[in-house]
Structures are given as structure tokens and as C-alpha cells.
């Protein structure tokens, strides 16, 4: 069994904000107990999958390890009980691709899969470049000081996905606020009440209110797109069919919510964290500045470095064995992506940020049938931003201490103050 101090650390939102605390905890686990059970206070026990190869093995066997049977993110016992009461026995407040298994997962993913393939995304390249240039011009006008997270990284991917989804620009601040409330529900700077969470009731009330506001918004959008379909993703969801039936209401709402949250927040985190890493590593910044062909490898390294999705949970559908450990049917498992992406058996000097790292087979997008649907869009947005920004960015340094969000599910920098010179 994992020592209690480590078990408490790997669930602690403040440890993820600290960074080093959670990195140290996972490094100890990879070395001493790479596949063991944690029993943190207030949570059902779960296996902690820390090694890159084991994460791939679990994700590849998506019939043996299900997403939907138990909560897909770390959820305290008390919150889980209340969610099941509210949702008629289901452990999920929403039902997106993340909470589905086959046959539903395949059917619902197919609805938008081709839209997210690289050949379809090519048609967006020119427009995304225009958006990126707009943000870079704005950054140039700021006079050499900005908070790169708040002024650029949060806003650029938000604008792209909202345009793709069909949300008007005037509603983008609301979408950003709701996203940060959802993913930053444990962070007193970002959650709905802007306060420390007192108990399970308070946590659930806040998240429930945020989800409710999203649903109200997207109900109206569904009606609009059914009446007047447009060339946007909302119209695909609103008018999509599974078999010969429209999408279920909860499933449609969840599709919008995942697009409107994960569709930008993860890219924002990676963009902000990528620039933070360059500011902290002037040698790597110089290397990248002198060779634009390194942008793709820098991009992958920033994704590995930040790993914005910190975990997903799976549960076993049958008794099985891994690492000589007996896993019982129903056992809960935490796939730790930051740990897999610092695995010393896969990455040489994993705690070093290298813009030319190769190979770089990180697991930040997951693996297997549930691999991130929006990975090509996220990569394209970041590639375009760096292609446009790096040639204009002549000098860069931190102008204060960056801060990360307090969260154990999806998180990254919430503030990256920089000073810079650009033309």
C-alpha cells in the first residue's frame, strides 16, 4: 500500500499547483511502488498507474478497463454518493465521450471524428493564423510586459474553439469563466464562489451550478441550430444522429460542454507552460529562435512538460493481474499522465526541458480508443502561434513568479508574468 503521505499528495490540488511536490511523489512511486494501491482519506482505494508502459497497457484494453462504470476523475466518497443520488445511480454529472464505453463511445465519437481529422482541419489554418496574429499584435502593443497566461494563452485557443463551435465572441468571457469554475473548482481564485471549498456539499453545489449554466446556454443553442443549421460544430451536435435517433439530451449537452471546456483549456495550459519553460531556459529559447524547424519538437516537449490532464480513472470489468498485483473486478485505477511523461525508462533526463527532444512519445493525449479527439486541432493552434510569435520575439524573461491552478484533474499555469522585446 502506498504510504499515506504520498497518497494524500497525489490527490491534493495544492500539490499540483506547487509542481515539485507532486513530481517528487510520483518519482518515489515509479522507483519503489510503480503499481500500488492508494487509500487517501475520504476516497475509495484506487490503484495508481505511474509507468508509461502500464498507462498504455491499460488504455489499450478498453474492454477490460472501463471509463463509465465509476467516476472518471478522482471523486471523494461523499461527492460520489451525492452525484449518484442526483443522477439516478450514475456516477457522472455529464456523459461525454470521456464517460462512455462501447458501443456508445464508438457511435458518439464517430459523429465528429472526421471533423477533427487533420485533412478537415486544414481548411481552418488561414483563419486560425489570422486570429493568432491578432493576439500577437496585441501583445506587441502591450509595451513589453504582460501576463502571458491571462493576456494571450487563455484567450487565443478560447477564441478558436468558440468560433468553431459557433459561440459568439461576446459570450467568450462567460465560457472562460465557466471553464475555469469547472476545472478550477478547488482553486479559491477561480471557483464559482471564489472561496476555499468547505465540504462535499459545497463542492458539488458549485460544480452543479456551473454545469447547470452550461446546459441552459447550450439548450438555447440546440434549439437555434435545429431551426437554422450553420457551418459550425454546434450544428453537427444539435442535428447529429446515433442510429436513427437524435443524441440523448444529457449526451448532447455533454458534447457541447467538453468542446467548450477541454477544447481550449488544455491548449491554453500548454501554451502558457511552454512559454514559461522558454523563459526559464534561455539556452533552449536561443536554440529554438535560431532554428524554426524545431517548432514541432518544441511543441511536443511543451505538451509533455505541462501535461495539462493530470489523470483519468478507469475501473476493471473483470479480475485481472498487472505487475504481479491482483486487480479485482470493479477496482478503481488512476492513470497518472504527468508520471508517465516523467518516466525515467522512457525519457532521457525527464525533468529537463529540451526543445529538440526526440523521440518524445508522451502520453499527454492519452492512448487507445479514448485518445484526445481534439489533439490535431490543439497542435495546429499551437504550431501556428509559435510560427507567428517566435520570429517577432527578440527577448524574453520572467517578470515575477508564475502560478499554477490548484486542481488535480486539468490544470496548468494561471499566471505567467513576462517582460519581452518584440517587433
Amino acid at each position, binding site marked *: 500500500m502506498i504510504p499515506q503521505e504520498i497518497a494524500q499528495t497525489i490527490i491534493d490540488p495544492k500539490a499540483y499547483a506547487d509542481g515539485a511536490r507532486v513530481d517528487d511523489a510520483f518519482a518515489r512511486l515509479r522507483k519503489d511502488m510503480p503499481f500500488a494501491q492508494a487509500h487517501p482519506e475520504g476516497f475509495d482505494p484506487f490503484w495508481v498507474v505511474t509507468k508509461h508502459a502500464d498507462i498504455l497497457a491499460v488504455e489499450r484494453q478498453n474492454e477490460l478497463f472501463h471509463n463509465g462504470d465509476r467516476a472518471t476523475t478522482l471523486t471523494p466518497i461523499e461527492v460520489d454518493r451525492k452525484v449518484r443520488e442526483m443522477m439516478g445511480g450514475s456516477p457522472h454529472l455529464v456523459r461525454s465521450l470521456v464517460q462512455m464505453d462501447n458501443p456508445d463511445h464508438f457511435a458518439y465519437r464517430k459523429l465528429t471524428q472526421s471533423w477533427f*481529422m487533420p*485533412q478537415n482541419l486544414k481548411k481552418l489554418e488561414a483563419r486560425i493564423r489570422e486570429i493568432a496574429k491578432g493576439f500577437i499584435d496585441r501583445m506587441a502593443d502591450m509595451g513589453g510586459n504582460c501576463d502571458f497566461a491571462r493576456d494571450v494563452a487563455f484567450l487565443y485557443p478560447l477564441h478558436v474553439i468558440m468560433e468553431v463551435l459557433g459561440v459568439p465572441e461576446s459570450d467568450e468571457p462567460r465560457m472562460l469563466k465557466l471553464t475555469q469554475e469547472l476545472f478550477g473548482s478547488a482553486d479559491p481564485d477561480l471557483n464559482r464562489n471564489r472561496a476555499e471549498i468547505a465540504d462535499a456539499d459545497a463542492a458539488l453545489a458549485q460544480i452543479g451550478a456551473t454545469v447547470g449554466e452550461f446546459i441552459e446556454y447550450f439548450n438555447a443553442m440546440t434549439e437555434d441550430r435545429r431551426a437554422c443549421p450553420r457551418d459550425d460544430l454546434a450544428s453537427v451536435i444539435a442535428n447529429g444522429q446515433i442510429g436513427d435517433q437524435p443524441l440523448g439530451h444529457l449526451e448532447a449537452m455533454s458534447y457541447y460542454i467538453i468542446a467548450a471546456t477541454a477544447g481550449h483549456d488544455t491548449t491554453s495550459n500548454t501554451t502558457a507552460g511552454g512559454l514559461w519553460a522558454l523563459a526559464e531556459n534561455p539556452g533552449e529559447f536561443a536554440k529554438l529562435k535560431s532554428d524554426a524547424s524545431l517548432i514541432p519538437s518544441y511543441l511536443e516537449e511543451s505538451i509533455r512538460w505541462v501535461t495539462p490532464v493530470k489523470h483519468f480513472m478507469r475501473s476493471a470489468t473483470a479480475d485481472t493481474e498487472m505487475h504481479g498485483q491482483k486487480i479485482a473486478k470493479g477496482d478503481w485505477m488512476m492513470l497518472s499522465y504527468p508520471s508517465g511523461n516523467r518516466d525515467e525508462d522512457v525519457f532521457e533526463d525527464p525533468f529537463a526541458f529540451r526543445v529538440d527532444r526526440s*523521440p518524445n512519445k508522451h502520453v499527454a493525449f492519452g*492512448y487507445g*480508443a479514448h*485518445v484526445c479527439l481534439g*489533439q490535431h486541432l490543439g497542435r495546429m493552434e499551437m504550431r501556428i502561434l509559435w510560427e507567428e510569435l517566435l520570429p517577432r520575439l527578440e527577448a524574453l524573461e520572467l517578470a515575477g513568479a508564475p502560478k499554477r491552478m490548484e486542481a488535480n484533474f486539468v490544470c496548468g499555469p494561471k499566471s505567467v508574468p513576462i517582460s519581452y522585446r518584440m517587433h
Partner: protein
Amino acid sequence: MSDRKTAWRTWQCMTCGFIYDEAEGLPDEGIEPGTRWEDIPGDWICPLCGTPKGDFEMIEI
């Protein structure tokens, strides 16, 4: 028809979008440039997401 007379083809993983180009092969995975799709073993899986070879489709790029 021999390889010299048949154009190289590309195949795409329908889960993650990974593209296998016969002309380029996958030298990092031990598949030489010029390896035809039919010559890749049946138990081969997508290097990006682990999807089986059977779930790839031929595409034009």
C-alpha cells in the same frame, strides 16, 4: 502489378488520425521506407494510439 508500377498509398488510423505513408515507412518502428500496407504484420498497432491495423482506412492526401 509490381511496386514500381503502383503508386504509394497512405492509410489513416480512424481513431487518432495517424497516417502511414508506404513511401516513407516507419523506420523508427522497424518498417522500412517502401513497405506496402499488405506487408505490415496483422498484429501491428497504431504507434500513436494502439488501434489495430484493421481499423485503418486508405485515404488520399
